[in-house]
């Protein structure tokens, strides 16, 4: 854990504590509407972190990660309403089912790279979305409602805790020998093969691991809203996660989180001014890609903390 101890050095710790403290203080500083919005952003951030694990390490862009988000949410709803399971058990079950789904989808998606992988995962995600849409038993296009688990503020703190746990998990995976091998595979797959790595197996495991993050998010959002619908598994959410990761800067730990907050808040603000706001979002995406393909985080990084750039685990 040498890498971890390096990250726990004093100046680094300080640079984490500030945003964490800010996040903790949010419910006391902002109106409840924005607290709820931030909670939504954190839920998306969890999906984005899953995307980021595959993208930054294995160079595999998943456009279907919302499948895990949606499935976890529905599992929670079904387990809670029909099986009367306690909250913690619903969570665990949701994660387990997601892992299983990750294994299933990963088994065939992993055989292709790059954009083809993006397309396969996209199609898989959409299939899940549509299966929910057409299944009357789980409410079809209307979805299902059930009593909420959290009030606004406890819910916010819960998802914040989830995000912190997710960050820790991400760091552990990333700085472990597994993470390093994965990065080597993403960098030069042929070389990794010829050095002895079973590339397919590593990618599969990575994909399954990456499904944990959106699963946590999905389980949370179900309990937070008391409501699940097929949209949670749609390509819209998957794409939002990818875009958030790109905006925030993939290859970093906080990139997906910042990107998600930015995206969710941007969409909320612009939507209140104009019903056609998505045209602006669409155009904005195009313009950002054309003129700032590295995302915005290199800018913020340069401004805020240049010393973080040298870290091998890329904070």
């Amino acid at each position: 854990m040498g890498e971890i101890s390096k990250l726990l050095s004093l100046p680094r710790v300080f640079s984490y504590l500030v945003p964490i403290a800010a996040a903790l203080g949010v419910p006391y500083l902002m109106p409840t509407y924005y607290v709820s919005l931030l909670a939504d952003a954190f839920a998306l951030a969890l999906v984005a972190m899953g995307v980021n694990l595959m993208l930054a390490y294995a160079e595999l862009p998943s456009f279907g990660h919302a499948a895990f988000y949606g499935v976890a949410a529905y599992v929670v709803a079904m387990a809670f309403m029909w099986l009367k399971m306690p909250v913690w058990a619903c969570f665990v079950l949701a994660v387990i089912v997601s892992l299983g789904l990750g294994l299933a989808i990963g088994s065939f998606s992993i055989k292709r790279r790059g954009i083809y992988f993006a397309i396969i995962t996209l199609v898989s995600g959409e299939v899940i979305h549509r299966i929910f849409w057409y299944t009357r038993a789980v409410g079809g296009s209307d979805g299902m409602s059930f009593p909420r688990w959290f009030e606004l503020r406890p819910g916010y703190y819960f998802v914040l805790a989830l995000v912190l746990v997710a960050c820790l998990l991400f760091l552990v995976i990333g700085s472990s020998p597994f993470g390093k091998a994965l990065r080597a595979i993403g960098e030069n797959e042929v070389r990794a093969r010829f050095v002895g790595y079973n590339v397919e197996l590593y990618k599969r495991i990575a994909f399954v691991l990456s499904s944990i993050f959106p699963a946590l998010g999905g389980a949370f959002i179900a309990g937070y809203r008391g409501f699940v619908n097929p949209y949670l598994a749609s390509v819209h959410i998957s794409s939002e996660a990818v875009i958030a990761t790109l905006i925030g800067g993939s290859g970093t730990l906080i990139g997906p989180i910042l990107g998600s907050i930015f995206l969710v808040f941007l969409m909320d603000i612009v939507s209140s001014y104009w019903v056609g706001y998505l045209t602006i979002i669409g155009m904005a995406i195009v313009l950002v890609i054309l003129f700032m393909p590295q995302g915005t985080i290199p800018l913020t990084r340069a401004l805020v903390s240049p010393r973080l750039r040298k870290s091998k685990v890329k904070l």
Partner: protein
Amino acid sequence: MGTILATRGLTKNFGGLSAVSDFDLSVEQGEIRAIIGPNGAGKTTLFNCMTGFYRPDAGKVLFKGVDITGLPPHRISKMNISRTFQLTNIFLRSTVYENIRVARQSRMKGFGLFSTSVPAYEEEAANILRKIGLYDRKDELACNLSHGEQRHLEIGIALATSPELLMLDEPTAGMNPTEVKETVNTIREVAKTLGVTVLLIEHDMRVVMDISDMITVMHLGKKIAEGKPEEVRKNAEVVRVYFGG
């Protein structure tokens, strides 16, 4: 001493083209064998068939008597066969040290998800770096190395997995004379002190004559000559194939 690597009737076709044709090879343990031949002779294809990159259309590859034909590359690597590539194939965005370390790590049991990096690997990685002369550049990004240094690094990566058989595809390509000399010394030292069998594809005839115990000559996918360097040099067929006329 026995036969460490053998191929029997190895054949690989691409469309209508026969890249490797009914090829028999037999390499003794501890030998340094050079495979030479004009461009397009099928030498790299031969390597690719032997290391799991291609599945041969016919024939067998035997390593220490075990049939390894058609095994995937990572399995072949695990059997302690290493190779380098014609176009330098390293981890460009990683440091020199990390290139070697991650290669060494492939021998770790399990996936190392929740374990730490094994200190022994780090020690061994450092040793290899010293052996190939890149220790003082260990924190440099591999993309910043000169071409010759990168090819040295690739040899280092190949050595990191403690191979019994080292397959080098044009190791001295693009190197200046000093680098060539260093490479030759490294290969010789590795072969003699570590007992590694070396199979190399090479175009530089001085290197070939200097270092090889035996030479196999390939042309249009077939073996046309084989023997000690002095014999091969005088072989009329070989001369004809290289110089025409």
